[in-house]
Every structure is written in C-alpha cells, then in structure tokens.
C-alpha cells in the first residue's frame, strides 16, 4: 500500500477516522469506523461519505471524484493504523453495494502480495471462509494482522 493516500485524522482510540477526498467534484469528507460486532474481537469496517451540510454519513454515495484508488489506499492505511493499536482483532468488511464489494476485491487482488506480508485475508464464498485467491468472487472479507516479526 505504498500508493498515494490522504492524511488521516482520528480520535485517541483510533476507531473513527476521517479524511478528505480531493478531486473532480471538490473536497468530499470520508469517514471510516471500526465497530465491534457481536463476536468479541471482530470489528466491522464501515466506510462512507460525510455530508457537510447535514453531517450525516452515506455509505452508498458514489462520489466520482476521480481518486478511487487513492481513497481505497487511504482506507487500507486506516487498517494498518487500527491494527497497530489492536493487533489481535479481526476486521470484517463488505461493500455497501455489489459494485463496491467488487472494488474492494480488485483493490485486494492488485495489492495481494503486499497485503499478505502483513495480514491473513479470507474471502466469503458460498457461506464459507477461504483464504483469499485471485479471480474468485467474494461476498465479504475477513482480515487479521499477522504477528509482528521480531
């Protein structure tokens, strides 16, 4: 994930992140939130646009700001930040639409070797978790930081 990324802001616990997408349609604030699921130690990754006027978050918004790769890299970098503070957690992620899930899959595929250096990554296929493989369509993803090598 050495591609360009935006500067992240967070609060002290590093569970809520915000950054500004800057592109064709101006500045669009984005939010990433890690929320613990009903399974302790498993966190859902939420991601969406923040409406500047209402303050509401929309995870189905299509910004078309011409910077989707940089946005995806920034979201991925928040996973590094979050798991640096909480190295033993699992992160569950799925897109709010099939198109966005596909975008996540392409992003993971493109950076798979680099991601696998640092994370275990699984894809959900026909209700079974399997180690992520290129070319397989997944409904969701599960990510865990590998133990830090000393």
């Amino acid at each position, binding site marked *: 994930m050495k591609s360009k990324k935006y500067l*992240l802001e967070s609060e002290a616990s590093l569970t809520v992140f915000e950054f500004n997408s800057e592109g064709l349609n101006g500045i669009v604030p984005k939010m990433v939130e890690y929320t613990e699921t009903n399974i302790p130690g498993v966190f859902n990754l939420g991601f969406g646009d923040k409406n500047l006027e209402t303050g509401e978050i929309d995870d189905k918004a299509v910004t078309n700001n011409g910077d989707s790769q940089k946005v995806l890299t920034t979201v991925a970098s928040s996973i*590094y930040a979050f798991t640096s503070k909480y190295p033993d957690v699992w992160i569950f992620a799925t897109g709010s639409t099939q198109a966005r899930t596909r975008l996540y899959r392409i992003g993971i595929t493109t950076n798979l070797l680099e991601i696998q250096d640092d994370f275990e990554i699984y894809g959900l296929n026909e209700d079974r978790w399997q180690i992520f493989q290129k070319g397989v369509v997944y409904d969701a993803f599960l990510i865990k930081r590998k133990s830090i090598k000393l």
Partner: protein
Amino acid sequence: MKIKELNESKTPIVKITKRLEKYKSKVVFEQKLQEANRILERVGLPENKR
C-alpha cells in the same frame, strides 16, 4: 515527515483530533454492522481460527 515518505509508509501518520471524539459512542454504519452480525452469526470465523 516529507510527502514522499508519508506516501511510501504502510502505517500512516494519523492526526489525532478531539473533533472526532463525538463519534466514539455512536454506531455510524448501523446497517452495515447489522449485516456483519447476520453474516457472522451464520458463518462464524474461518474453521481453523474459531
């Protein structure tokens, strides 16, 4: 840190701001969390990790 170094580091520089503290006690992506819980209840974790 220079921009080039920022772009090349895996773990990002994170600016801590109190402005985001108000979201800590909220579930912003409620629907997504519910969906995650539904899926995880059905399929659990990978077999060798339970």
